């Protein structure tokens, strides 16, 4: 039997949290590789950082900051759900976490361009 309808806010919050976590984990090796250039080959690092002026890279950075923000606020929501004795308004908090993430990522993007 097919799975029940999943288009409800908490299920979406769940899947966004998992996928953003996996995506961030996948990004980390690249992140450390570039950071390591600062020690091993500063000249190459400067060349690499020049790439960040490209629009495509800026858009990718927006996505990265969004992933970080949505994972952090979604994680805070889950921590609050599990550690604070509350029950209502879970959907609003999930939506709020997404909204704050968009705000931060959007602010970063506007500042970057």
């Amino acid at each position: 039997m097919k799975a029940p309808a999943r288009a409800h806010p908490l299920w979406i919050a769940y899947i966004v949290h998992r996928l953003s976590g996996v995506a961030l984990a996948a990004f980390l090796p690249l992140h450390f590789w570039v950071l390591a250039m600062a020690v091993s080959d500063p000249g190459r690092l400067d060349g690499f950082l020049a790439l960040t002026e490209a629009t495509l890279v800026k858009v990718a950075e927006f996505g990265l900051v969004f992933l970080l923000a949505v994972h952090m606020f979604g994680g805070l929501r889950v921590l609050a759900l599990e550690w604070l004795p509350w029950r209502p308004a879970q959907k609003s908090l999930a939506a709020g976490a997404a909204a704050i993430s968009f705000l931060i990522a959007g602010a970063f993007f506007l500042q970057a361009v």
Partner: protein
Amino acid sequence: MPSDVLHVTIDRANGPESFEVPAYDNQTVLDVVSWVQQNADPTLSYRFACRVGMCGSCAMMVNGVPRWTCRTHVSKVTDGAAIHVGPLRNLPIIKDLAVDMDPFFDKWVAAEGVHHGGLTRDDSIAVVDEGSATRVEANAGIECINCSVCYAACDTVAGNADYLGPAALQRAWTLLNDAKDEGSVAILDAVSGDGGCHNCHSMGSCTLYCPNELDPMSAIAGLKRETAKNFFWRGR
């Protein structure tokens, strides 16, 4: 009713089978399934008893959503004039729409969803303070009728056959908060194991689809807090 015939698809052992069922103004999904069994194919197997949302035996997947078929009006779920009915998800199928509820009830017991009495007939009845915080928590989940709708809705159950599931864990939380139950150590031990409350990802499908509007997700969150407190501050 936009049409006088319903196009009903029922998942059976040999795959989905289609039926044309007369549509009426007042008609539940259970009425539709019963019409098929009584007029089209007497070999169709399904399960029901009370027909009024008290017994919890008629739950099925209706257009992909677990529901009590007896309390689901056809007009609320039809997709055009089409309805797709299947057996509850996450449970072994016995035949057609009848599932084997044994795993569900076995987990109910495995989560210590049984009464742990400490008094004898000579003792006076335990005093229950209706206004206490623990009683409010216990009352919140006490109307569960074991229909397994939440169990069928849960993706964590689908992914982990050992997971106790929302209904059993909610009952454990209810008993943990019940002044008449003295099994708190056994309950916390039962729900903190491999298949216990910490498997829950708080997807909330249990709470969304519960026909009694109960909130197993929050009950499981309560168990997570209590098991963690037990682990950090009282040792295991």
